[in-house]
């Protein structure tokens, strides 16, 4: 509310000021039209008196000032016309000094002064010196600042600069610089002093107002930068030292922060490079409350843009040793500002790193040096909890990845993992994911065991539980996401040399086995498949590899066996079983019978001891049967043992239909289509008959429990198996056996106790249609089908 009232009051005061100003401007204009100099001066002085107010905030005061400013242009033109008409400018200069109040007098003086310089009746430097001295009379900060900015504005195009028409003798160049520097110094003093005026409790408001006024002060630096005479020598020897002297000595954090920013922005890059030491030397001398990281960040940003602008400027950077100077300065600032929060220090390092990555992309040592400095700053402290700081570290660590698009480069940096060690567990994981994403995005191949070792050390936050990492807090979805990314990563590790690849696999294995039961199901499978890929490669190269070669499939299978075993501790028997079977098949392809047999044994042990769920058993047994069917490495004895077990377990499944289906699937184990595959027609038939018996039993059971609706489908499925082996030329399967089965099914489907199952009937119909089709088709097969009636 108070602020509201204040604003309303201010509007009122501004309106009053404008009204007074307009009224006097009106009469001033009339006086000018009637060529009445005396009245013109009188009314203009009264008009300018409105600027003596101390009630307005800088913004409002500026509005009033701009109106007065516009009116003074008319007066200035009039003065010019007067001098053209022969009025002496010195007389005018004297005349305006009769104004009663000092502020209007000085505005008028500056206005005439501008014409005075244009007339060239006196050297520009003398007039300027006179004016800048006289402005000292105003010590009220706000009106003083505006008055001096008026002086700066009207003198802007009249400075005795090089090439200017007001350029005087040899010394006048420095006069232009001196004039601006003096005006700047005085304005800065007024600006800094402003904070000590008024009530203590109005400090906040005052700081806000001071902040609004800052551009009036900074403007002078802009003027300096535009001067032709401010060349590098002048800048280095006079301008910069004098500005910095003012900045450091004013001991005011607002002024220091702002003016440093101004220096950096208004002067050209070349100057900064050539005066880096001086500019950076001022930084540790600034007040501890100055936001130096932003200032230096902007400087480095400017310089790296400059470096990027053209390759020709790079030697300049090297010549002045820009990196080491910046690095030293940052070190000193961090040392000097004891209370700087850690995030500030890290932000500085991020800026420096960005700078070196852009300017010296080939200098990995610089990158590591920055990271090293960061480690030094972080060391001795507990893990970071400050989220802003960790965010900055992630930025720090991500920068080299983004620049080089290649983790391999980052892996060469000894300090990289040391920085990561200072992250809290959560951020460590985020960073690890960032690293993996970078690898995936760039399709980076990690090709040696050493690099893999370094990489896994980096991402260990994802690989194993860290100290104190409370597991139950982890979000399940996030965890899956992370572990899936690790799984993807494992596929990016590759070397064409089998020995090195085996080393890589062993290294990965070593790390992932530390992962614990929740991680293993994600990380073991990709490792197994990666190793199997190697096995296949070896097999293709086979022939020239002897038994005692360093890398043999046999050795790899041994490692695989031990790796899968780790899953049993999880326990994750279904997964382990699948992996064993995969390995068995691979061993089969390598012609390693004992190895393949061992994997099958492991699979059966798991089946017996660990797979308890009936559905899981069904899936598992079908996997076993399928795999076993494809094996051709086994001798009769081994094969018999395994098929015997498979059929045995099939018949022991919990539900009759499951038993039935598993058993008829087993029939394939005795009939392999390979060249020298087993063709044991008798045992095929045995299996099918057994399946039929089970189907019968199942039907009876269904009759008892549900009063009808037997699993006719099972019979039809078995019929299809019969047809398959019949066509396949199995002598045990005859047309009459098939005929019997068809009739059985027909009876079943038509029996009244059986509620018609439409899908079973459709299945049977299409099976019959198939038989008819084969018969019609004729040929050898048609003849074979001939005796069957449907």
């Amino acid at each position: 509310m108070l602020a509201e009232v204040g604003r309303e009051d201010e509007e009122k005061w501004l309106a009053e000021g404008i009204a007074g100003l307009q009224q006097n401007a009106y009469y001033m204009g009339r006086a000018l039209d009637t060529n009445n100099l005396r009245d013109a001066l009188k009314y203009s002085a009264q008009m300018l008196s409105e600027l003596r107010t101390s009630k307005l905030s800088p913004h409002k005061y500026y509005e009033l000032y701009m109106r007065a400013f516009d009116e003074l242009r008319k007066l200035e033109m009039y003065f010019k016309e007067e001098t053209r008409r022969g009025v002496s400018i010195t007389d005018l200069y004297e005349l305006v000094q009769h104004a009663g109040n000092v502020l209007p007098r000085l505005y008028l003086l500056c206005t005439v002064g501008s014409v005075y310089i244009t007339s060239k009746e006196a050297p520009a430097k003398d007039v300027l010196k006179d004016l800048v001295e006289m402005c000292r009379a105003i010590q009220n900060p706000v009106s003083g600042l505006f008055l001096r900015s008026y002086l700066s504005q009207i003198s802007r195009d009249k400075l005795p600069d090089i090439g200017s028409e007001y350029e005087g003798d040899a010394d006048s160049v420095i006069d232009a610089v001196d004039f601006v520097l003096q005006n700047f110094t005085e304005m800065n003093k007024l600006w800094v002093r402003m904070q000590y005026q008024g009530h203590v409790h109005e400090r906040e408001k005052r700081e806000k107002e001071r902040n609004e006024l800052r551009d009036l002060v900074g403007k002078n630096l802009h003027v300096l930068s535009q001067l032709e005479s401010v060349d590098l020598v002048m800048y280095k020897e006079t301008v910069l030292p004098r500005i910095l002297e003012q900045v450091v000595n004013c001991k005011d954090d607002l002024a220091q922060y702002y003016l440093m920013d101004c220096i950096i922005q208004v002067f050209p890059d070349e100057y900064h490079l050539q005066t880096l030491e001086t500019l950076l030397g001022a930084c540790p001398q600034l007040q501890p409350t100055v936001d130096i990281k932003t200032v230096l960040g902007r400087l480095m940003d400017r310089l790296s843009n400059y470096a990027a602008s053209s390759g020709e400027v790079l030697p300049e950077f090297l010549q002045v040793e820009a990196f080491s100077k910046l690095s030293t300065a940052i070190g000193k600032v961090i040392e000097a500002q004891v209370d700087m929060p850690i995030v500030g220090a890290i932000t500085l390092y991020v800026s420096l790193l960005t700078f070196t990555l852009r300017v010296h992309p080939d200098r990995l040592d610089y990158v590591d040096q920055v990271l090293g400095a960061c480690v030094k700053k972080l060391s001795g402290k507990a893990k970071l909890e400050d989220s802003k700081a960790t965010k900055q570290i992630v930025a720090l660590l991500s920068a080299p990845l983004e620049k080089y698009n290649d983790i391999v480069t980052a892996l060469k940096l000894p300090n990289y993992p040391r920085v990561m060690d200072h992250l809290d567990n959560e951020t460590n994981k985020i960073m690890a994911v960032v690293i993996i994403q970078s690898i995936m995005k760039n399709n980076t191949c990690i090709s040696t065991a050493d690099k893999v070792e370094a990489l896994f050390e980096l991402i260990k936050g994802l690989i194993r539980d860290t100290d104190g990492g409370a597991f139950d807090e982890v979000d399940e979805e996030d965890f899956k996401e992370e572990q899936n990314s690790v799984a993807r990563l494992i596929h990016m590790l590759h070397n064409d040399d089998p020995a090195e690849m085996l080393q890589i696999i062993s290294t990965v294995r070593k790390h992932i086995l530390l992962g614990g039961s929740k991680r293993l199901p994600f990380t073991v499978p990709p490792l197994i498949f990666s190793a199997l890929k190697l096995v296949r490669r070896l097999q293709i190269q086979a022939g020239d590899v002897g038994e005692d070669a360093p890398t043999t499939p046999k050795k790899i299978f041994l490692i695989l066996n031990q790796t899968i075993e780790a899953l049993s501790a999880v326990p994750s028997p279904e997964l382990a079983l699948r992996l064993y079977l995969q390995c068995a098949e691979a061993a089969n392809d390598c012609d390693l019978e004992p190895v393949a047999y061992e994997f099958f044994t492991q699979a059966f042990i798991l089946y017996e001891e660990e797979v308890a769920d009936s559905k899981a058993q069904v899936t598992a047994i079908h996997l076993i049967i399928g795999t076993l069917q494809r094996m051709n490495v086994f001798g009769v004895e081994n094969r018999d043992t395994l098929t015997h077990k498979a059929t045995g377990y099939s018949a022991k499944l919990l539900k009759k239909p499951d038993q039935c289906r598993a058993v008829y699937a087993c029939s394939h184990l005795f009939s392999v289509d390979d060249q020298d595959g087993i063709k044991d027609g008798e045992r095929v038939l045995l299996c099918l008959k057994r399946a039929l018996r089970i189907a019968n039993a199942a039907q009876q059971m269904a009759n008892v429990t549900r009063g009808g609706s037997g699993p006719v489908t099972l019979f039809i499925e078995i019929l299809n198996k019969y047809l398959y082996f019949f066509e396949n030329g199995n002598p045990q399967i005859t047309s009459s056996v098939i005929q019997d089965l068809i009739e059985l099914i027909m009876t079943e489907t038509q029996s009244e106790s059986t509620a018609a199952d439409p899908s079973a009937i459709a299945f049977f119909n299409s099976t019959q249609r198939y038989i008819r089709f084969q018969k019609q088709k004729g040929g050898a097969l048609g003849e074979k089908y001939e005796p069957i009636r449907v």
Partner: protein
Amino acid sequence: MASRRRMLLKVIILGDSGVGKTSLMNQYVNRKFSNQYKATIGADFLTKEVQFEDRLFTLQIWDTAGQERFQSLGVAFYRGADCCVLVYDVNVAKSFDNLNNWREEFLVQASPSDPENFPFVVLGNKVDVEGGNSRVVSEKKAKAWCASKGNIPYFETSAKEGINVEAAFQCIAQNALKTEPEEEIYFPDTIDVAGSGRHQRSSGCEC
């Protein structure tokens, strides 16, 4: 009185940081160019006398800070502008996209009496860079935008090479001249025959 007023034409140059506002002004007024980037702080002007239809005018060209943090005092200097120049860098798409913001901001802050017809001029600067190979905003696109905003005159310029700068400012001056004087017509409340405003003279302190 009106004739005196019309001798001064006020022009404001607006646009993103680094598009070359200061360079354009320096090229036009001083025929100088520097490749170095130097930020502008606050706002200030240079003047140039221009001859037009046998009359002499003073062009007051206000150069402004493109970076917001160097515009701490606000934009009271927009007041009374006769023409507004919008500058973008033909090699920087963002600087073109922002023209609309600059235009609207100007219309809001300066609040000219007839915003629909207030004269703007658009300059696409830095056409010299890399022989035009790095340019991203086509002349066609820029002209289409200008057409959509009431046929704003458009120039492609290079402050560095001095291309089209003179012509652009000639057009700016012409357009500024076309603007009706914005000045509110002031009449004093009371006609004080015996020397008005005397009561206002401060009798207090002399500062």
